[in-house]
């Protein structure tokens, strides 16, 4: 038996199929992953993401420390509540984890990292924090629920205290708000509008029950994966890891190269890789025929080296199979993927595949 979130018994009572995810017993789906997926694209879904790790950083050296720790630059966060997506790199420029940093107040930040990488992340952060005046505090007593979908915010707003409802609804995308015991962030991992709400564990079950009573569809990790794939959002450990740089994972946009004198961990090797035009690129694939692309399948590009699918699956919105793949550099539109000893035609496309309920590629 793995670790359980404060919502575990809610999931079991709702008939969820429980699977192990990074040492946590988590819901895979509550009956139909496809229905859960569509509910988020069209209406609203709720996800238990309490397994994720919340770390609060504070102290006179917090900003300086994060500017060293992360490839993106927290100095870009000018307004309180603003969020920043970043990779945390090792000395070779490989990705230790991807995370979101929220700027709460001067020298006070909240960082949310992946569940499966908790131990190594905390070890790395504490090791690097050594000489900085920064306090690193994990917050295991907190739970997190994501409500996602075009109607999610309006529905969930009714569960907030009166005084927080309006300011929460006024949050712009990628901003967060400390609302008493709650922390409400207009962020997510589905490609839809919505909130991620951090709260004391004791409050989570009643908040979850209110979501369900309001008609918000409970959603498991299965739908979370197909939604993030359609949205072109990377999954740590699948699309990138410590041997892959953000440049080969489609995450070049998250590296803050300026100012040039900011010495973030991994900068030097990354600078060398950036100058190499032969480095692999990260792109979306659309299967032209029926079938399903899967992780690790070989991508064949005429006249070039092979590539590899990092995340493949069925897109419920497109009703076609899609994938993310690491493939040779260059401009080309057609490639093939080896599926059970046959080569199937795929089209190389720009991600995302779907965003805010709309298909963003030509089918």
């Amino acid at each position, binding site marked *: 038996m793995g670790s359980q979130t404060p919502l575990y018994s809610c999931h079991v009572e709702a008939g969820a199929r429980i699977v192990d995810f990074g040492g946590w017993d988590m819901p*895979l789906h509550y009956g139909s*992953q496809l229905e859960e997926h569509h509910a988020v694209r069209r209406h609203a879904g709720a996800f238990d993401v309490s397994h994720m790790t919340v770390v609060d950083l504070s102290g006179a050296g917090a900003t300086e420390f994060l500017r060293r720790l992360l490839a993106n630059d927290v100095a870009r966060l000018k307004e309180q509540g603003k969020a920043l997506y970043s990779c945390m790199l090792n000395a070779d420029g490989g990705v230790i984890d991807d995370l979101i940093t929220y700027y709460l107040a001067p020298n006070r930040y909240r960082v949310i990292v992946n569940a499966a990488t908790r131990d190594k992340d905390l070890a790395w952060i504490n090791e690097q924090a050594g000489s900085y005046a920064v306090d690193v505090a994990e917050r295991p007593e907190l739970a997190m629920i994501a409500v996602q979908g075009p109607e999610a915010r309006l529905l969930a707003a009714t569960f907030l205290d009166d005084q927080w409802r309006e300011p929460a609804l006024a949050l712009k995308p990628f901003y967060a708000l400390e609302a008493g015991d709650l922390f409400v962030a207009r962020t997510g991992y589905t490609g839809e509008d919505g909130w991620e709400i951090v709260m004391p564990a004791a409050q989570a079950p009643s908040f979850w029950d209110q979501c369900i009573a309001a008609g918000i569809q409970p959603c498991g990790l*299965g739908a979370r994966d*197909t939604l993030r794939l359609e949205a072109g959002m990377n999954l740590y450990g699948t699309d990138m890891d410590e041997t892959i740089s953000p440049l080969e994972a489609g995450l070049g946009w998250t590296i803050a190269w300026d100012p040039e004198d900011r010495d973030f961990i991994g900068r030097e090797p990354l600078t060398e890789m950036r100058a190499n035009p032969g480095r692999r690129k990260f792109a979306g694939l659309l299967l032209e025929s029926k*079938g*399903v692309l*899967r992780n690790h399948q070989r991508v064949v590009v005429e006249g070039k080296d092979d590539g590899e699918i990092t995340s493949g*699956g*069925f897109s419920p919105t497109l009703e076609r199979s899609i994938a993310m793949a690491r493939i040779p550099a260059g401009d080309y539109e057609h490639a093939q993927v080896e599926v*059970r000893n046959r080569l199937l035609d795929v089209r190389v496309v720009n991600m995302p595949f779907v965003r805010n309920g709309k298909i963003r590629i030509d089918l």
Partner: protein
Amino acid sequence: MSELPGDLKYTKEHEWLRQEEDGSVTIGITDHAQTALGDLVYVELPEVGQEVESGGEMAVVESVKAASDVYAPIGGKIIKINDELSEDPEKINVDPYGDGWIVRLQPSGDAGETMDPDAYQSFIDELDE
């Protein structure tokens, strides 16, 4: 837990077999199998006329989660395939023992090991523990 149809035989690979009056055998996957796979999104079917060996790959069912081979529980020649699964693979989720049948084959040899409903029920009960 749904009741297992009494007129079928079952395999450890979670296939079911129905003996038809003309000597052929209809094959599908069990309710336990479709539940474990989750929503099915693609089925790769063999060709009519294809010969399959007992224990050999016969079809592939793919769910949102994973691809799973369907093995021939008995050797023979494929005489019919459920074409409707190409457009509606979820028929297997909805009606695994009826509209979700996969192939019909004319056996040419012995069946591998099969179980009656009670034995299969015990088998999956043990797996769930």
